[in-house]
């Protein structure tokens, strides 16, 4: 198979997600409405509580990171979700694609949508709350977003793995995993206020380190970004490996047929 053939296998997931998204009115809500409402609510809350600029930066960074994470992870989860809802999973898995083709293609679309959300929210937070999202410099933004996209892809793959292992009802994972992340990664508060066991859990989540890294650019504490990125890459590799194993298991157990019924 030529490199162009391989590339098209990767882009097949990008193409499908793009077509479905552009036809779906829900996309407007995913890209603009909910992220904007989230940002606005948090921003207004900081006004009401009359917190200082550093605290405004702290919570707005969390709000924007969460929005990007959610949009990017759902795009990777859509690898199976769209097929699951249209009962066409076997059409995909009878073709000569591998897990990484699907993940990379969907991730590419997730990155495009994630960057779009970032730009909308960065502009809105600057205009409404005077918060300059680019104050830390371009490198900081790129490292921060790259970490979020890699983490989001891992979450999306966990959703796919859940569906392949437990069937159709596991699609609820698509909306719950990022909620759990929000709770333990210090999106709206420092992880130091969490109970002991949750603090340990927060240290195993890359988002915790990514938030610390970005906030440090605004003078809020120190960071361990290398550890965060290493964890993000480790989880990405492990998720991809487990996804391939889950696909093979679904072929053995017949789940692949049941998901298409």
């Amino acid at each position, binding site marked *: 198979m030529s490199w162009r053939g391989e590339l098209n296998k990767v882009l097949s997931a990008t*193409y499908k997600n793009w077509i479905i998204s552009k036809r779906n009115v829900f996309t407007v809500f995913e890209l603009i409405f909910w992220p904007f409402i989230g940002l606005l609510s948090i921003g207004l809350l900081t006004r009401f509580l009359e917190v200082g600029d550093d605290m405004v930066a702290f919570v707005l960074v969390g709000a924007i990171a969460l929005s990007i994470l959610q949009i990017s992870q759902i795009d990777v989860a859509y690898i199976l979700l769209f097929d699951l809802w249209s009962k*066409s999973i076997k059409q995909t898995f*009878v073709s000569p694609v591998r897990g990484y083709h699907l993940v990379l293609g969907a991730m590419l679309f997730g990155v495009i949508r994630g960057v779009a959300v970032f730009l909308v929210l960065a502009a809105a937070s600057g205009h409404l709350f005077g918060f300059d999202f680019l104050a830390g410099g371009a490198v900081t933004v790129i490292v921060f977003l790259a970490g979020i996209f890699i983490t989001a892809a891992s979450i999306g793959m966990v959703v796919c793995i859940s569906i392949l292992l437990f069937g159709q009802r596991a699609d609820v994972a698509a909306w719950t995993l990022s909620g759990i992340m929000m709770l333990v990664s210090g999106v709206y508060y420092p992880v130091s206020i969490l109970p002991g066991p949750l603090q340990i859990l927060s240290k195993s989540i890359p988002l915790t380190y990514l938030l610390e890294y970005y906030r440090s650019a605004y003078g809020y504490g120190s960071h361990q970004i290398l550890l965060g990125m290493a964890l993000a890459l480790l989880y990405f590799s492990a998720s991809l490996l487990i996804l391939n194993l889950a696909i093979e298991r679904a072929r053995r157990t017949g789940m692949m*047929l049941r998901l298409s019924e």
Partner: protein
Amino acid sequence: MRAEKICKSFRRLFKEKMVLFDISLSIEEGEVFGILGPNGAGKTTLMSIFSTLIRPDKGSLEVLGRDALRETHAIRERINISSGNPNFPWSLTVRENLHHSAMLYGLYGRSLYRSVDDSISAFGLESHSDAKFETLSTGLKQRVSLAKSILNRPQILFLDEPTSGLDPEMAMKTRDLIKKIYQKEEITVVLTTHYMPEAEELCDRIAFLREGRLVALGTPKELKRALQIGHRITIEYQGMIDPVRLRIIPGVMEVRELSGRVEMVFDHSGRTFSSIIKAFGEADILDIEIEQPDLEDVFLELAR
């Protein structure tokens, strides 16, 4: 393609159910091979194993000279499948779905666009190419699935109940299209159906499955002969005959005598027919009706 002792079970709610038992068969290159059987016989499961969508519990499978349990991706490049009750992403149009499927098979550039166009025209989908999949009738969905199945010019084409849910006219058209494709492309076709005339019309050889077991394998003619499913003949006559003379004719399997009419089942081979006529002696034969056995009879016999 060669399958040796293929077994498959499915587990649901801690209960394991065997669905295929020791299936061994081989399919020759260029052959149209039918897998027949009643509902729940394991046809779709066997087809799914052959097309590498699912894996067997036991047994070995060789497809296009490769080990189908190890070299699955290389095999998938050279085969394709059209499923019964086909589904594709609903909000994509016919053309978009075919384009997406062509990408999954690694087609690119002009060959991708040409393949999509050829598939659309092969199945007469030109006027529906911009219609969303969710708006199509069952027949059109089936045609989209068939169009998708030839995108990568497969060497083996798997067709799972290709005419299920179609009205008789559309089913006939679809069978014609299938014939046209395998005659033109010279590919191996493996199809499942429980529509007997379809199997008789399309298949060189047939495997019958019942409750997950292979109960018969052969050409339609061989199966009819092996099961001794004979021709039916009804003769109306006037005069006297001796039914015993009819029963002792070699090849006659069954004789039923009614007033002025005899119904018989006989093996068409040899001189049975002329012997039957001679056995009527002086009686006047008023009418003869001969009914050839079809696969429906084979199916009913095997499904018992």
